[in-house]
């Protein structure tokens, strides 16, 4: 009898821990595993699909008489804007301006690219890109508005940056496609991230805990989210919220044109869906600008010439054909 009791205790403990780990595995771990490797963690975009001077690349293409002579500016940018500045390079730069370590493009490193140090196309994404433009390693950075830390980094270095808006984009919120919620108001979203609403039923959805997902501080989308929240702080969430129904944020074209994951859906905001048309007509509530950013003391005259071309009808058409919305 005593032996039976002892065995029951041991088996009970094993069963309890097994159940807990199986539950965590199926609710969380399995959703992380396929994204977790050196090559895929930071690889927010398959740069190989957007390389200039390749017929198979998914770039906007235009014929132009505009050319640059002398030192060509080094272009860099956020993952979501690779199609834009790669299209600019494809239209204006000579083919020899984009070079790779080892002579060939390969995508087996952390950021998914191997541009040579002398290449006029680089891809450092937002966080490293802001550092590069302030430090003078990049001439023009294509990005969303900077975070407070990025502004401070430039100030601390005594660098003034020029921000030229070159296109428009929608800041969007998305959920799993099976989440019955299709629309939220901007105030409801602020209340979700501010910690007021913690269950989807509070905003007309299913009876399930909300998991408000945030991004790495300094990323373009997190900076846009901080601006969207205004004076309100993003609240700490319960660790158990991770198993709830998630809501995330990003930019429209990154969701709809680059990642194109059919298992998630963008939400309408205040009843307006984030389509290109609703950005153009100004009805979508959270339209953000994206910028060509350069150091004010950069002496390369081609920087202003290139940005003027991007703001011309030809350049703006290229922005539009890259999937974004023209600013002019």
């Amino acid at each position, binding site marked *: 009898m*005593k*032996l039976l009791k*002892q*065995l029951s*205790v*041991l088996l009970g*403990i*094993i069963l309890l*821990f097994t159940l*807990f*780990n199986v539950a*965590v*595995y*199926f*609710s*969380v*771990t*399995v*959703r*992380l*595993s*396929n*994204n*977790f490797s050196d090559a*895929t*963690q*930071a690889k*927010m975009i398959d740069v190989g699909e957007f390389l200039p001077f390749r017929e198979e690349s998914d770039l906007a293409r235009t014929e132009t008489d505009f050319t640059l002579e002398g030192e060509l500016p080094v272009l860099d940018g956020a993952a979501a804007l690779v199609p834009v500045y790669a299209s600019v390079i494809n239209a204006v730069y000579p083919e020899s301006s984009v070079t790779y370590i080892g002579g060939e493009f390969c995508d087996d490193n952390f950021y998914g690219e191997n541009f040579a140090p002398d290449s006029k196309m680089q891809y450092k994404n937002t966080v490293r890109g802001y550092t590069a433009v302030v430090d003078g390693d990049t001439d023009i950075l294509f990005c969303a508005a900077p975070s407070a830390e990025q502004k401070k980094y430039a100030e601390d270095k005594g660098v003034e940056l020029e921000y030229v808006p070159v296109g428009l984009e929608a800041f969007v919120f*998305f*959920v*799993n496609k*099976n*989440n019955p919620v299709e629309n939220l108001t901007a105030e409801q979203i602020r209340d979700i991230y501010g910690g007021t609403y913690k269950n989807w039923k509070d905003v007309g959805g*299913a009876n399930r805990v909300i998991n408000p*997902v945030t*991004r790495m501080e300094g990323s373009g989308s997190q900076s846009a989210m901080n601006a969207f929240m205004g004076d309100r702080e993003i609240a700490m969430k319960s660790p158990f919220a*991770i198993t709830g*129904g*998630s*809501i*995330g944020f*990003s930019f429209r074209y990154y*969701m709809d044109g680059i*990642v194109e*994951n059919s*298992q*998630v859906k963008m939400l309408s905001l205040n009843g307006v869906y984030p389509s290109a048309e609703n950005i153009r007509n100004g009805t979508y509530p959270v339209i953000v600008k994206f910028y060509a950013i350069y150091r004010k003391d950069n002496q390369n005259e081609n920087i202003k010439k290139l940005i003027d071309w991007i703001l011309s009808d030809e350049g703006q058409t290229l922005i539009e054909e890259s999937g974004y919305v023209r600013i002019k």
Partner: protein
Amino acid sequence: MREKYFRFLLILVLVLCITVTVVHVAYDVYAYGHCSIIQFIAKELW
């Protein structure tokens, strides 16, 4: 089973179970901070 042997087994089982669970949770915390949120939300069960 002798009491001494049972206690040894009990501690062994607890240490093993807690170690596996802590490693599992630590992996999830690290991976969650680095994964694609679009993929994470796409694989959500409803």
